[in-house]
């Protein structure tokens, strides 16, 4: 199942991307997802042919290696081989914040409901999970407030506080 986050709304979508396994031939669907090494070898040709290309990054792959290609990529899939491996959170934040990637950032692998809020806050907007979209949305929004600025651009507590203080001052003024 693939859940997409669009305009603050979580919903199920059809996955139009075909994953290409290691050693497999590239399907002739329009949209494919390749591993980083496959992409580095064959991506250029696919992009030139006008295909939609996504790259699947293992936790140890460095997002720095994608910088030049990011504007042409449809999506970056970040793999969680085990949910406890948190490297993909930093990759996601860097894609969004450091490199300004605005394509899809997809969570794949061991994608569990208890990490929904981490993923959303770090800038993921697509989730390959067996959880339904409503349950996913509820888990992602479990906390009414957040303490830090992150890639989801929710206002952190200190912004909420200063806004509240300003409102109060305006009322009193």
């Amino acid at each position, binding site marked *: 199942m693939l859940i997409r986050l669009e305009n603050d709304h979580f919903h199920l979508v059809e996955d139009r991307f075909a994953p290409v396994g290691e050693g497999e031939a590239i399907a002739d669907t329009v949209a494919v997802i390749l591993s980083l090494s496959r992409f580095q070898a064959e991506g250029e040709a696919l992009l030139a042919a006008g295909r939609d290309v996504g790259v699947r990054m293992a936790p140890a792959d460095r997002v720095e290696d994608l910088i030049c290609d990011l504007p042409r990529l449809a999506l970056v899939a970040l793999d969680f081989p085990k949910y406890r491996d948190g*490297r993909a959170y930093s990759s996601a*934040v860097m894609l969004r914040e450091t490199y300004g990637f605005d394509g899809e950032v997809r969570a794949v692998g061991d994608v569990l409901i208890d990490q929904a809020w981490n993923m959303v806050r770090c800038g993921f907007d697509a989730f390959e999970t067996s959880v339904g979209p409503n349950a996913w949305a509820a888990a992602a929004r479990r*906390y009414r407030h*957040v303490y830090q600025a992150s890639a989801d651009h929710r206002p952190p507590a200190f912004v909420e*506080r200063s806004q509240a203080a300003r409102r109060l001052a305006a009322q009193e003024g």
Partner: protein
Amino acid sequence: MFQYDAIDAAMVADRNAEFRDQVSRRLSGELTEDQFKPLRLMNGLYLQLHSYMLRVAIPYGALSSAKMRALAHVARRWDRGYGHFTTRQNIQFHWIKLSDTPDVLDYLATAELHAIQTSGNCIRNTTSDPFAGAAAEEVDDPRVWSEVIRQWSTFHPEFTYLPRKFKIAVTASPRDRTAARAHDIGLVLRRNREGRLGFEVIVGGGMGRTPYIGATIREHLPAEHLLSYLTAILRVYNRFGRRDNLYKARIKILVASLGAAEFARLADEAWEAMDRPRADLPDVELARIRASFGLVDFRTLPPRSERFEAAKGDKAFARFARNNIVPHKVPGYGIVQVSLKGIGEVPGDCTADQMEALADLAERYGHGEIRVTHEQNLVLPHVALDDAPAVHAGLAAVGLATPNINLVSDMIACPGLDYCALANARAIPIAQAISETFADPDRAEQVGELKIKISGCINACGHHHVGHIGILGVDKKGEEYYQLTLGGSGAEDAAIGHVLGPALSADRVADAIDKLVDVYLAIRQPQERFLDTYRRTGVGPFKAAVYQDAHQA
């Protein structure tokens, strides 16, 4: 004392609601133990040797009387009438039921307490100076910065699944009471020549299997950039720290393998790439947090208290004043240290009655503040010297007036095999035996400062690596044995201790300590602490004394 606002309270309430739901899903069978275990750990609930243990965070070791009473209530209502203060300035309850935990957490929340991030591979409770706001030599109140870090690290989305746990210490005094150099990150706040506040940033210290003293990667990070720079360090660690081997996953291993200079370069690179104004805390929020601590309304008193001086006519009080009370930044006040190391007692344990008595004394004589030290003692940071005799009497009435701070019987001991499922050997009975050996307070004072630290396994929760004398429990052919190390320090002169020789059986440890102390007394020079003598002479004379009769063992 920091006060929650509605947002802080909502954060804890949301977390407690989530955990209540997770507990009920576990009890109804919807979650398996494998799925549930990491969730309960993230809420501080461990399954130990005999039972569940709940670890409650005491942010930067600061308690109010109300919080202390809440802990007493938990001990009495849901546990067996006591709690255990840890080397991380937290408290552990050793007999909590899983089915009670949601109620316990809701109750704790009413006193602004929680168990969030007291376990798991996340950023843990920040260690800080128990003398904060009271020590004359501090350049700023380190609690303010610890609270900044508490908020930033709570439910940090990027840093909840780090390679391993992560501990930060903040101190603002030249005297380090936090073991900053033995933390993943140690922050030492100073003013530079222009008077600007900045942090010395120390990275990669730690204990465990491979102990390291941290390396300084920045001499003076402007204080206003604390959060962006911490984010940079954590990002480098999260990305490149090892995840293939539990024992090599702490940041100390990354820093050691890259070298401090290369680690610093990577951190700087990550820092440069960051949108810093967005990552750093705005000045108004810093000012708000500072104000949330409120001001202690000290009285204007003469520096010398006649009542205090007169009370020293009583030998017991005089001894207590000598060993447990240190000068305060405000004239006429003292910092009263409360030892949880009564002779033959369990280091760090405190009964519900004692907690309540302390809460009362703090309220009556100490502006309602209590601190927990990483050496498992408590502190009443603001006591007028005039009131010290009354405080002493109140402490004595509940068995808390042991006058042994920094002395040989003021030991750190982890719970060891009496509670901990990971232990190789017991730690507490060893501490008890040593403290009985040095029960004579005159001898203890003659020996002077001596820090003994005991761990029940190589995880080193008892900080044995940085003990002047460290004791590590090992399993040798199915028996409890203890390896001694000498020369460690967790203070500003931080060092890792050296192994003295082959491990000793349990019944020989206290005697060996006795011999080490005798050697020290025989060869020390004026003003030398045990540690200084060891550093001067090396291991030779100490080793000879302990192992001279080894062939008889």
